[in-house]
């Protein structure tokens, strides 16, 4: 909760910085603010309380996810420094990112549909804008536009669902809804509402068949923004999704499990299979992001004691891996004027450091031990197994094999293919630091996953 307030204030400070011309200081202030927010967030641990008329529930679940979001945001800021160098929109960018973080925190801690809805919108609207922040680039425009239209469209369904649920239960409060579900027979419109909300949430987490926006938007948006979407937005969306369905709608799981089953399967297959043919790394990562949503859906579907920590860990592993990959893709793409896989050719020779970090990150995304990604997948599979979804486990296994297929295309390009030029890509020192840190983090998380999963 304190973190939420601090983040909002940071956003406002960012706006004010424009006026008071302290733009130079803004970057350190924000980083410092994030650290503070993290610390404040830690203080909320175990202080479970419903606050503001049960609008929020800042339980450990929320604290954990908030912590994750702040950490990832911190890493993201380190990676995205260049994004804030552009003089004209500097403060805007800061403010928008910080506001979207506020939305993200709301999404992980809501206890009321209004908060969920607002959280989603507060997260999404800055994203729409940031996706288009490269104003003269038509791809960026297209990305923002597609995101906005489809996002708004999906919001319509989400809201329709909320309305129906409200109609059936007379409440927006998750716990009250859960009570209503468990207390007796509800009007059939409730179940329609659940399904419509499911569709809305599925859109936000880019689950097939509501994933179409993701590849296009991810590809068109500036790379750092894509990184933000792939990590923080996805994490928040999943946390929200899980919270909604594991609390309020758990009693009605007969209604949605089959659908989520199919969605998970489709997402896994479509995401992974389509990624195989991509030539643009960014687009490939976009499809892979879709695919990763599929794995997390597995845990969501499982709905057991493992689910929460599984999704937390998966989101963490995936986000950290993505930060690294997107950072490197960004560096390479700006150095070589293109994000095609062939721009990675020979990187193993010219920039071994980048290549190694990229390899570790890709191995993590592909789920190979001893990286974090492996344990994440393992944990997800365990939860799915416990829930008895053996079929999905099989699909997930096949899908992750296909996943290896395309992740390794980059690895092969880096180490096997010859580069056209032998020039060394310049890497800023803070990026180096970030990448090394992230690489170590990936391995450490893979070796000692207990430190994360014990949280939930």
């Amino acid at each position, binding site marked *: 909760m304190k973190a939420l307030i601090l983040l909002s204030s940071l956003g406002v400070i960012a706006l004010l910085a424009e006026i008071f011309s302290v733009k130079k200081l803004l970057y350190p202030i924000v980083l410092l603010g994030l650290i503070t927010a993290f610390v404040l967030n830690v203080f909320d641990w175990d202080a479970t309380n419903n606050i503001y008329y049960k609008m929020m529930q800042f339980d450990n679940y929320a604290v954990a996810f908030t912590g994750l979001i702040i950490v990832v945001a911190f890493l993201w800021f380190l990676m995205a420094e260049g994004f804030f160098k552009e003089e004209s929109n500097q403060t805007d960018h800061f403010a928008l990112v910080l506001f979207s973080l506020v939305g993200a925190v709301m999404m992980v801690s809501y206890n009321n549909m209004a908060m969920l809805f607002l959280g989603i919108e507060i997260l999404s609207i800055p994203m729409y804008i940031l996706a288009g922040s490269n104003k003269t680039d038509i791809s960026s425009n297209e990305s923002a536009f597609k995101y906005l239209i489809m996002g708004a469209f999906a919001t319509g369904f989400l809201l329709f669902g909320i309305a129906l649920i409200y109609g059936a239960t007379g409440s927006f409060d998750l716990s009250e809804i859960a009570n209503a579900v468990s207390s007796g027979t509800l009007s059939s419109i409730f179940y329609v509402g659940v399904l419509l909300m499911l569709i809305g949430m599925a859109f936000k987490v880019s689950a097939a068949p509501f994933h179409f926006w993701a590849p296009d938007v991810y590809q068109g948006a500036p790379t750092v923004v894509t990184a933000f979407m792939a990590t923080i937005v996805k994490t928040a969306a999943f946390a929200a999704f899980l919270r909604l369905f594991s609390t309020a709608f758990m009693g009605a799981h007969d209604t949605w499990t089959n659908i989520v089953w199919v969605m998970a399967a489709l997402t896994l297959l479509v995401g992974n299979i389509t990624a195989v043919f991509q030539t643009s790394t960014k687009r490939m990562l976009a499809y892979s992001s879709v695919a990763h949503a599929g794995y997390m859906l597995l845990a969501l579907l499982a709905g057991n004691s493992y689910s929460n920590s599984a999704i937390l860990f998966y989101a963490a592993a995936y986000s950290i891996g993505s930060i690294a990959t997107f950072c490197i893709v960004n560096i390479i793409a700006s150095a070589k004027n293109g994000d095609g896989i062939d721009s990675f050719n020979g990187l193993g020779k010219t920039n071994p450091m980048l290549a190694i970090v990229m390899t570790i990150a890709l191995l993590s995304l592909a789920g*190979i*031990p001893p990286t974090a990604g492996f344990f994440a997948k*393992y944990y997800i599979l*365990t939860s799915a197994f416990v829930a008895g979804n053996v079929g999905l486990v099989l699909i997930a296994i096949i899908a992750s094999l296909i996943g290896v297929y395309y992740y390794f295309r980059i690895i092969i390009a880096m180490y*096997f293919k010859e580069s056209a030029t032998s020039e060394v890509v310049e890497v800023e020192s803070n990026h180096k630091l970030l990448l090394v840190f992230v690489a170590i983090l990936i391995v450490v998380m893979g070796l000692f996953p207990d430190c994360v999963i014990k949280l939930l």
Partner: protein
Amino acid sequence: MITVLLIFFPLVAGLLLLFVKGPQVKNIALGSSILELTIAGFALIKFHRDATTQFEWNCNWIQSLGIHFHVGIDGISMLLVLLTTFLVPLIILTSFKNDYKNPSAFYALILIMQMALVGVFVSLDGFLFYVFWELALIPIYFICLLWGGADRARITFKFFVYTLAGSLFMLGGLIYLYLHTPGGEHSFDIAALYAAGQKMDVTHQGYVFWAMFIAFAVKMPIFPFHTWQPDTYTTAPTQGTMMLSGIMLKMGTFGVIRWLLPLAPLGVEHYGRVAIGLAVFGIVYASCIAIAQKDFKRLIAYSSIAHVGLIAAGILSMNTQGVQGAMIQMLSHGVNVVGLFFIVDIIQRRTNTREIESLGGIRNVNPQFAVLFLIILLGSVALPLTNGFVGEFLLLNGVYQFSAGMAAFAGLSVILGAVYMLRSYQSIMLGETNSITASFAPLETSEKAVLIIVCAAIIAFGVFPKPLTDIVAPSVDQLVAGLRVALGR
């Protein structure tokens, strides 16, 4: 403690090696692998020749999931640790005449792989086992990708995905067992997993059996999961091939002994005949294909499939002779195949070809090489008093107890092996020299050293295998006795 040292010493050495540049890299790598061998030797000295698990080290790793860092060495592990630590220095030594780009990375990867291999052999926790199992794949993948031959990207990738696919099934099987561990808390401890597996009925053990068998079958490889292997062996750099065939292959057979048999004895009993059938068919199948090979390296690759098929069949027949034979044969095969691949390497580096037909008469120029080659070849065709025979005899014995027909069919490899090995020996070494072989350079000291060590091992283990069997026999007896109990025999 010594077990932990065995695991992590190569890792540390490998990581440090990354920061070393210059010509000393080879020597440092060799030195550290010899040091590792010394540690293993020390362990061997302190090892009691009984069935207990020794040098155990058990600490919490992922507490919330009941995953422990639990390692220990019993007879079965000891033998494979010895194999690994014995072969790695040899393999490093074989590379002394190769000039690889970026040698520090090359040797670091080899050492890291050694760490993973040792880890696989000493793990007593299902999850830990799996992690090491997969971990072993990464260094070898990069060894093959970075230093391999033509078309390596596609081939090594296929190898990677294929084996990974298999292991994922194993992971599924392990998780399944984990979720059925008795008691309140789930655990990956080997004993708990054994208990979980053995109390299942035939059908469920069958699931476990197939899930895990596929992983091991791909690794070994057993027909029809073998098609990654010839290409990979052919394409990989010699040292990579040696690591793959000499040690990594044993992960599969070891996995069957340590993890498959006790986990699903009923499953093995019930479905094992299909697996044995595949393995035995694979023996003859691969032997036949070996006859048709023109590339010597490929020929050895196929012969390796044949050998390992027999090992698998022996293990799956679940009797003392079979399992013990498998243990001996794993060791022998490791040594022999390293020798054979080194011979290929020696020939290839001197003549730039591996085509059997285009060579000939090398014996005229280099009789010493011919003799060493012949000894290794004889070990490979399992001539008595070479190491290959002891294992093969026990294995055939084991398979025979399972089914006489199978044993007879598997025994065809005795004939076919002689056919293709002698054919290639004749074609490469005998006859008149030609333009390619006329200037076959004499053996370098390091090459001679490796070949002589290999030959010495071949003969020593063939004549006097007792020191090895003594290590492993109590554990094997205990294992088989345990299986008998589990099967209610």
